[in-house]
């Protein structure tokens, strides 16, 4: 299948109510409806999902890996941003 006829789509699956969609993988498909079906057939065969998003891979804007110094390194030294200085109540399940 040519890349032009069946472009790539990124698949996001939400496993349960209250959770967020997570990236599951990608599929090739001719259009949005077929991408949705392909995602269902490939990534939810074992009851993995209750909701599917598909997004054209070409629509995803990614950072340049060469910029990772300025993008991500500055956070490494800021330990006070991590919420590790207090205890979470058990009732807060999915932080």
């Amino acid at each position, binding site marked *: 299948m040519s890349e032009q006829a*069946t472009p790539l789509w990124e698949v996001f699956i939400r496993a349960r109510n209250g959770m967020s969609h997570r990236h599951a993988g990608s599929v*090739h498909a001719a*259009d949005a409806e077929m991408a949705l*079906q392909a995602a269902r057939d*490939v990534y939810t065969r074992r009851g993995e999902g209750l909701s599917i998003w598909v997004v054209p891979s070409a629509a995803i804007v990614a950072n340049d890996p060469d910029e990772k110094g300025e993008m991500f390194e500055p956070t490494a030294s800021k330990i006070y941003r991590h919420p590790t200085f207090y205890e979470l109540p058990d009732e807060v399940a999915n932080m």
Partner: protein
Amino acid sequence: MMKDQALFTYCMRLADDSAIISQRLSEWCGHASHLEEDIALTNVALDHIGHARELYTYAGQIEGKGRDENALCFHRVEREFANLLLVEQPNDDFAYAIMRQFLFSAFMHPFWEAMKASKDEQLAGLAAKAEKEAAYHLRHSAEWVIRLGDGTEESHNRITDALEFLWMYTGEMFECDEVVSSLVAKGVAVDPMSIKHLWVETVNSVLTRANLERPAQSWMQTGGRGGEHSEHLGHILSPMQYLQRSFPQAQW
């Protein structure tokens, strides 16, 4: 003579339909156009295997001679199979497989929907599950019919060939012999004529969207329910039954 010969025959017909179309779909495993469709077709095959297993098991219980699902599926010969001729037609190309599935699922979806009201609890229970699966089979095959019909000249020609070849096998789905009519009268079976308008509606609307012309021919093939099959069935049964015939009682 068993207590309910008609119900046994009816369940065996439905079981054979599911087993044979499942075997046809399984032939695509490792051969479909791309990975996504390979899995999609075998998912559909697995749904049909599930229906076949429940129906064979139930038929074996009705018969009461100790035959289980394996005995009924793998230790019967061609002439004993009562599936529709439509489901045994070969995978000449992807368009044939898609059109066969579409014409069948466009019937099976309203069929299972109606079967949910059956007075037979086993059949009604299976219908509740099968109806959702059939809805997806129909959606998947219909979307492909539309894309092949409304796609390139090549895809249009291939799906047109498939439609014209398979059309004569669609009449059998609506046959109503004594087995069916006696069970319809008891509120157990689905009267196929009662859902024909739904099948016609689905087929017409999808063919229109696919830029395909509904074949004009009205002559229909028949014989599958009575065990008179096309030459293809024997070639389906031989790989399908090989293992159980070589190693009877083999367990997964």
